[in-house]
């Protein structure tokens, strides 16, 4: 019996990183689903586990771990199972470089767009007083700002434009890197690929003008290769929202320009 509990939302972005890493590693875990759209992550029960109120968190025995990328490295080192980091030190450096680039530069741009079109509208219909109270309960000031912007649609045109610029640059970088190597950061499947899939699994749907089989054949090859792995399928089957079900686009064998259905 495993003594691992993962507190997570959907197999998407940060939550999906340790979910998929644990599954690829073959570690059984108790799943504790937190509904981000219901602000479960800011409720007292969860704040007792992670006072910062960020998702995900992982309990292993009596210890609680946060920071999704650092959790993935822990999962890889603390359990037996397939190795999810390359052997060569320079390849390891490259895995970490790409994870940071996605976590801190590209990911926030994707998520600003995602929060603006998905998260914000999904919670906006709730009772206004309830929303106000929910925002006030958020422990980290920068998360409070992010939620306020998402809920009330306050992202400035300029910052959305900058996010879209970064998404375009990032897609170009991913395509170039995957043109050089089979996997994102080395010649073996690694935590960088798990991280990247969580960021980009719906790319041909979310950025149809920038990513498809004509423009970014290497990205599409890579996404399909990850989606073909049994653990990816099992992980995404844990999703409950329409947002993560978009992963099914990868079952389409060819996605041309403007052909997204």
């Amino acid at each position, binding site marked *: 019996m495993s003594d691992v509990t993962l507190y997570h939302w959907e197999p998407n972005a940060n939550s999906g990183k340790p979910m998929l890493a644990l599954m690829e590693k073959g570690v059984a875990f108790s799943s504790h689903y937190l509904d981000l759209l219901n602000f479960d992550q800011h409720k007292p029960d969860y704040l007792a586990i992670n006072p910062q109120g960020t998702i995900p968190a992982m309990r292993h025995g009596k210890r609680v771990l946060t920071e999704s990328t650092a959790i993935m490295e*822990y999962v890889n080192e603390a359990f037996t199972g397939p190795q999810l980091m390359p052997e060569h030190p320079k390849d390891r*450096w490259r895995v970490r*470089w790409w994870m940071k680039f996605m976590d801190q530069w590209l990911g926030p741009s994707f998520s600003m767009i995602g929060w603006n079109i998905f998260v914000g509208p999904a919670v906006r219909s709730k009772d206004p007083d309830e929303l106000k109270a929910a925002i006030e309960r958020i422990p980290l000031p920068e998360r409070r700002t992010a939620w306020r912007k998402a809920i009330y649609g306050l992202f400035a045109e300029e910052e959305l434009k900058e996010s879209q610029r970064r998404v375009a640059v990032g897609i170009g970088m991913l395509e170039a890197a995957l043109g050089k190597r089979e996997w994102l950061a080395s010649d073996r499947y690694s935590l960088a690929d798990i991280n990247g899939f969580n960021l980009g699994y719906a790319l041909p749907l979310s950025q149809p003008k920038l990513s498809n089989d004509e423009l970014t054949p290497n990205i599409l090859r890579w996404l399909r290769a990850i989606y073909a792995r049994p653990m990816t399928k099992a992980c995404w089957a844990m999703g409950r929202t329409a947002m993560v079900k978009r992963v099914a686009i990868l079952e389409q064998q060819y996605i041309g320009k403007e052909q997204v259905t």
Partner: protein
Amino acid sequence: MSITVYHGEPNGPSFTVLAALFEAGVDASLVHVDLAKGQRHNLACAQQPEVAMSVEGEGPVVVVEDEGMTDSVFIACYLDDVGKGGRLRPTDPYARWEMMAWCRQMIERTAPAAAYLGLCAHPPTGDHAMLAKIGSEDLRARWQDTAAGLNAEDRLADSKTKIAQAVNKIEAQLDGRDWLMGEFSIADLESYAWLAGMVELVPSAFAERPRTADWVHRVRVRPAVAKALSLAREPAPDVCWAPGPEINRWG
């Protein structure tokens, strides 16, 4: 396999990499580049994506087999891997997680604040010809903002708060221990790297923080650290700043 380290003054990320290099006992050629003049963008590897798009901004570059490596904490992990035997990271996976999570918070919350305050007080001198060579549009924008003069009240105040929070965290962490993770590690180097120059700029954050003051001294007198600091060309390397990591775009 030969290693070349292109580094600036031993402050911020250049400090972390130089000190880690000496701590790990790795042989390398050292080349000084003036990061505050943007000289990094003249390197042969400057347009490689992992150099041009480094989240760390103007940090050192380590070149191995023509590939440029950036981001000081990960370079330090690399040096620990190729060095003379795991001296810079704990071996226990949980302790390693603790160290990486600590460094992540330092990178994401403290470093942008320190860089902002450092640049306000000590603006660098990059010229227009250099700006055109910068591969990353947002890094170029940070140079331009710096040239125009940084003094946004809200950013200054927020940055000072973040420095005070980091020092509070360090003071608490050092309760009953000499080093942040118990054993000496990259966390000590990375934390010192960004905070050494803040003692003068945000003195209130360090007031009545005796454990932090002792720790700063303890880091400084380590032979590898002293060697890194001895490479300074300026009398006070901790006033040398170049545009670093950006302040979180989400507010």
